[in-house]
């Protein structure tokens, strides 16, 4: 079965520090991969998506970046965090057993202080 692993699950980072969130997918090959952010009490905002190794599309201009060094690995990074980067970050991929619907990992909670 397809599963998504995300880590770390929770982190508290000071303003101006770097960030690296990692996501790996099991049970599928060449998946579409996505990073979403969910701010407190708000909906899901698509940040980046990737259809293949090294291919990244950015949806929202900001101080975050994404990379896909391997087929089933997706990384979200920042060189200098802002307070506004706080939120719940979710990695997602397509669930091939359920049409074109996407499924999510457990998420990473980021608090920038």
């Amino acid at each position, binding site marked *: 079965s397809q599963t998504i692993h995300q880590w770390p699950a929770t982190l508290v980072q000071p303003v101006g520090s770097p960030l690296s969130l990692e996501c790996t997918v099991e049970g599928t090959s060449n998946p579409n991969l*996505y990073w979403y952010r969910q701010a407190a009490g708000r909906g*899901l905002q698509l940040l980046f*998506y990737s*259809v293949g190794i090294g291919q990244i599309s950015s949806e929202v201009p900001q101080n975050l970046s994404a990379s896909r060094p391997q087929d089933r690995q997706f990384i979200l990074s920042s060189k200098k965090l802002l307070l506004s980067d706080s939120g719940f970050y979710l990695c997602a991929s397509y669930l091939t057993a359920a049409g074109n*619907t*996407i*499924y999510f990992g457990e*998420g990473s909670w980021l608090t920038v202080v």
Partner: protein
Amino acid sequence: QKEVEQDPGPLSVPEGAIVSLNCTYSNSAFQYFMWYRQYSRKGPELLMYTYSSGNKEDGRFTAQVDKSSKYISLFIRDSQPSDSATYLCAVLYTGGFKTIFGAGTRLFVKA
């Protein structure tokens, strides 16, 4: 205009009530319609999905799509306290890469 509109609630109902959750969308090109359930501090989980119009039933849950009015609904029968969560609707173009989500409706079912 947002592509998907969803009332954020909160919606509070007594146990056993029928719950109706709704979304509207703006683009008639959307073909996939999904409902996700998200418990506090967890990732959303797919509850139901529908391709094109019509109804789909799964246990106590029924998803309904009315493409003529661009309206999607989720009905929960015999609601339980364990149904308390945020429910997100989502839409997708056929062949599209980007799923678009509503803001989510927070539901509380009181015992």
